[in-house]
Structures are given as C-alpha cells and as structure tokens.
C-alpha cells in the first residue's frame, strides 16, 4: 500500500528540500521504493541537494504536457536502488501544472512506488496547491522562530481546509544552548501553539550545509547527530516508537567530546 506525503512549511528556507532529501533517502536505505517529486517549478533545488542536477533531461512539466513518459523523467539516485527523483522544470513557472494534473501524476507514481514524497515550494499560491493536490498526508516543517511558527500555523489551517488532517510536525534547526539561555523557542512552546503531533526535532548542524552542497544527504552519515535525528524521524513515520535523542550537548570542547563518545 503506497502513500504520498507532502513536505511543506509556508515560510521559505526552513528545510523542506533538505528534509525531503533525507527522509526519502533513509526510506530507500530501508528498502522501500521511493519517488521524490520537486514541485518548486522555476526554483528547483531538490536535484542539487540530491546531487542529480547533471542528469536532468526531462522534468515534471514535460511529463504532464505529454512530451515524455513518466519513466523517462524519473532519475535514478546514484547511491540507492529504489530511490528516484522527478525534477521540477526550471524554465517555467508554477502555472505550468494544475492540481488535477498533479493528482493524476501522483496516482500514476503510486503504482510503482511505496512512498511518494512531494517537496512543496514556499508560499500559499498555486505551487502549494499543486503540491498538496495528490497528498495523503502532510509533514509541516518549522524552525524555532516566531515568524516560521506563524507561517506553519497558517499552513496547517490551509491543509485542514483541503481535507489534509493531522499533519505531522518537524522542528528543524534547533539550538539547545540558545533554548537553555531562553533565547530560542522551546519545543514545548511550539507544540503548544501548533497543537499537532511531533514527528521529529533536527538539531542545527553546519554539516547539513556541507552535505547539501555536496549533494549527499546527511542521513547517510553515520556519525552526524542531525543524520541520527532524521533516521529516528523516519522510524517514527513508519510507526516505530523512538524517543527523541538528547540534543542537550554543548558545542564547546567538552560537548564535542561527550558527543564523540556517545556516537562511538
């Protein structure tokens, strides 16, 4: 039984694309057949984060316009079997695809894949409407900032209005030392406002930037704390009970030392 999940946030730059890449990669590492769909037409990024940019010949707009078959546009990942990317077009805009076409596309993909992850563009306009059109479930990404939480709240309301109930929350880029000092919103504060189930918390980690630039999702890095957080998040998505990892380690020398021993 296959499932389509849209990854959305409202606000830009909170980690939708990075999360899509990491969740999809780990699902594939666990043996599922996964299709990643980039719906950010005109501002595509998922291909870059996956390191597959130079393989794009056809894209999502070519598929819906009938210029190529769906299979021709799907790009096989260079590391994991069963992981495929359907890239967005870069030379078009969001109006090149309609929600009806997206629904058809997702249902076609469902015949081949266990999971279809849809990377949603920022905003609440047509790109958002396209992205959620064929989705069974939604993951809402936010960061511990008031503005991001505000936008997440708006998105949750819009998802509910489109009959996408019970979205799951991912809090990205949390800095425990700042939370401790009272300079950053706590996990509790965010859940208090948004009142949806928490799927995972990803610590702020500069290695994510490095791995995104290299086109290698951090979830493949055994030693990375953020990678571990993504792996746990996927386990919870699959229905397994995994506690939140203790992110409460400082960034000083002792903190790094402690982390080293914990991970070893």
């Amino acid at each position, binding site marked *: 039984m296959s499932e389509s999940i849209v990854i959305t946030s409202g606000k830009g730059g909170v980690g939708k694309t990075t999360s899509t890449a990491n969740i999809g990669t780990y699902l594939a590492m666990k043996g599922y057949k996964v299709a990643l769909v980039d719906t950010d037409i*005109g*501002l*595509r990024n998922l291909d870059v984060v996956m390191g597959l940019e*130079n393989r794009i*010949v056809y894209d999502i707009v070519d598929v819906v316009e009938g210029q190529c078959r769906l299979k021709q546009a799907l790009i096989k990942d260079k590391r994991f079997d069963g992981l495929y990317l359907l890239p967005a077009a870069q*030379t078009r805009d969001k109006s090149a695809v309609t929600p009806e076409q997206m629904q058809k596309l997702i249902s076609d993909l469902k015949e081949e894949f266990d999971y279809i992850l849809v990377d949603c563009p920022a905003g609440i306009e047509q790109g958002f409407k396209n992205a959620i059109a064929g989705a069974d479930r939604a993951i809402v990404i936010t960061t511990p900032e008031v503005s991001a939480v505000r936008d997440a709240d708006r998105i949750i309301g819009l998802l509910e209005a489109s009959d996408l109930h019970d979205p799951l929350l991912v809090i990205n880029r949390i800095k425990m030392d700042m939370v401790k000092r009272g300079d950053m919103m706590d996990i509790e504060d965010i859940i208090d406002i948004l009142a949806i189930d928490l799927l995972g918390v990803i610590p702020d980690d500069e290695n994510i930037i490095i791995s995104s630039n290299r086109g290698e999702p951090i979830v493949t890095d055994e030693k990375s704390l953020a990678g571990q957080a993504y792996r746990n998040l996927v386990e919870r998505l699959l229905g397994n009970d995994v506690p939140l990892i203790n992110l409460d380690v400082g960034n000083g020398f002792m903190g790094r030392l402690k982390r080293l021993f914990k991970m070893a």
Partner: protein
Amino acid sequence: MIKEAIKIQGTKEGLVIVLEEDVDIELLKEKIVNRIEKSLNFFQGATLTVRVKSLNIKEENLEKLKDFILDKYGIEVQIKNFQEKHIKNVTDDEIFNGLEEGITKFHKGTVRSGQVVKYHGNLVILGDVNPGGLVQAAGNIVVLGTLRGIAHAGFTGNKDAVIVASSLRAMQLRIANVISRSPDKEDANDYPEVAVVKRGKIIVKPLYHLNDLW
C-alpha cells in the same frame, strides 16, 4: 525621404507586401486596405502575402483581418513573419547547415538559471551560462565565458555542430540527439575547450585541435 513602411514585391509566391516596421492590427489593416483600394484591379484574383517584421498580433485578430479582406475584395491574404522567411533552413524540421558560415546571434550578458537562449543559427554568448541556464542553437555554440549550464548545439539535427567555451564546466552537453553529462567528480580545466560528436559520443578536447571540426 521618409522610408516607406510598406513595399510591394512580385515573387514566386505571388504578390508580397513587406512591412518593415512593427505594426499593430489596426495599422496593418489600414495599410493593406489602402494598398488594395489603390490598385484593386491589379490585385483581383491574386493571392497576397504579407510579411511583417514582428508579429505581436493575436491569431484570432489575424483571422478576422483575413476574412474581412476576403469578403470585401475577394483577395486571399497570407500573413507571415518577416524574419522566418529571410533565414534559410530554419524550421525545426530542417537541419541547419551553416556551421562554417551562417546566420549568427550574439547574446550579450550572462544566461542565468531558468533562462533560455534559443536560436535557429549559430549562437555566441558574450558572457557566462550559469547552472540551470540553457543555450540552444541549430548550429554551433560559442561561450566567451564559463559554460556551467546546459548547451545544446545542432538541435535541429546537425551532429557536426560544436560547442566551444573559454571554460567548459557544463552540467550537460547536447549535440543533435546525443547527450552527455558532467562527471560527478569534476576536474575542470581553465583553458578553452571544444565539444564534438565522435562515433556517437560527445568528446571534449582542448580548442587547438581544430583539424577535425566540420
């Protein structure tokens, strides 16, 4: 003397009205009607071809204009884009053969992500082509900067077309229907290089190997 914006020529495709300037639908109508009324007998029964330099007119308006003239004077009018006819071998179905010497476009500036520069001839980019940018030419492509995006030479089918760049770091190179992508671990060279099709594959070499071009 004021340059006449409308000329009449007799060619093998019949009588041709050439409009040198950009026109809107009203002006086009006025010009054609004026011309026909001036010498109605001359035009009677002929097919009239109108070529305009740039056609910023909706298809349905053109149809209305054609019907109007057909009804009023019994003259059939064809309206064609000026440029299309002046470039030889330019339609998508025909292979462009002007590689050594042919019509060329010079594009000023950087081609950025999401931008497409397409030309039915040879194409020279006076700038860079960034990742996500696409340059397409029926003939050769020369990039006088760094080519980081996608270049498609000979897109109407000419496999002899070449791609030249001062610095060739393209994401993808396409010549006619042959595609190659950049290696995942790339060591880019800082001297000019040329990409050609050899035995069905695209190969890249330093630009001074010019003997086997075309």
